[in-house]
């Protein structure tokens, strides 16, 4: 039995990357709301494209009217927030096409939204995309990937109760 099996035995909850790109430490995100983990622990990805997929099976708990952020709650009780870009609430929906709807059941890999990251960048916004566990206190251990390229669907967070 390898280490991975052992970890599986511990029933860690695995979350996938919502978008393709480069992982950076959350502490390097240029917004203290995320960098100082005010919203919770998590990862940050510099997106290579704007297709944002469900990182886990769950229910869409929040879709911001502006389309820049989506909340998902899993059956294990993980409350996740995916926030595309920094300060992008100011764009008021421009360059965002949201596919997911509130209360909708989603599966890992379902397309949630499409963001035009080139246009968002051109408009002067940082497109780095944090994915945060809002109820981090509910977990004993949260392990986050902090570097390297990922494809949407690659494992980036493991949390243990």
């Amino acid at each position, binding site marked *: 039995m390898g280490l991975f099996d052992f970890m599986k035995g511990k029933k860690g909850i695995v979350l996938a990357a919502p978008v393709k790109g480069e992982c950076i430490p959350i502490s390097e995100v240029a*917004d203290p*709301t995320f960098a100082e983990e*005010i*919203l*919770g622990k998590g990862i940050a990805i510099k997106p290579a494209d704007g297709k944002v997929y469900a990182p886990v099976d769950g229910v869409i*708990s*929040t879709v*911001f*009217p*502006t389309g820049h*952020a989506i*909340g998902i*709650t899993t059956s294990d009780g993980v*409350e996740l*927030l995916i*926030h595309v870009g920094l300060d992008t*609430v*100011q764009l008021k929906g421009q360059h965002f096409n949201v596919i997911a709807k509130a209360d909708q059941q989603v599966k890992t890999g379902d397309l949630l939204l499409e963001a035009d990251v080139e246009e968002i960048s051109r408009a002067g916004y940082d497109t780095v995309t944090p994915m945060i566990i*809002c*109820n981090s206190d509910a977990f004993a251990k949260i392990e986050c990937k902090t570097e390297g390229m990922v494809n949407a669907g690659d494992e980036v967070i493991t949390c243990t109760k």
Partner: protein
Amino acid sequence: MKTFNYTINDELGIHARPAGLLVKLVSGYQSATTITKDGKEVDAKRIMGLMGLGATKGTVVTVKVEGPDEDEAVKAVEEFFKGNL
């Protein structure tokens, strides 16, 4: 128990940043704080709950604070709303 009503004045309403700051603020008090909008009540210590309210400009919310330090807490929360929302 202390309550007050507040009309959201900020154009963007309770989005990620103010929600995070509010959670941080109320977590510093023993009292329980809830925010109600259109009959939907959420715990102000829960980010996801706060953001799920969809409280945008013009929305009236009711803030309720209850606990041993409610006098202090309600003052701080009211100041937060006036300053940030």
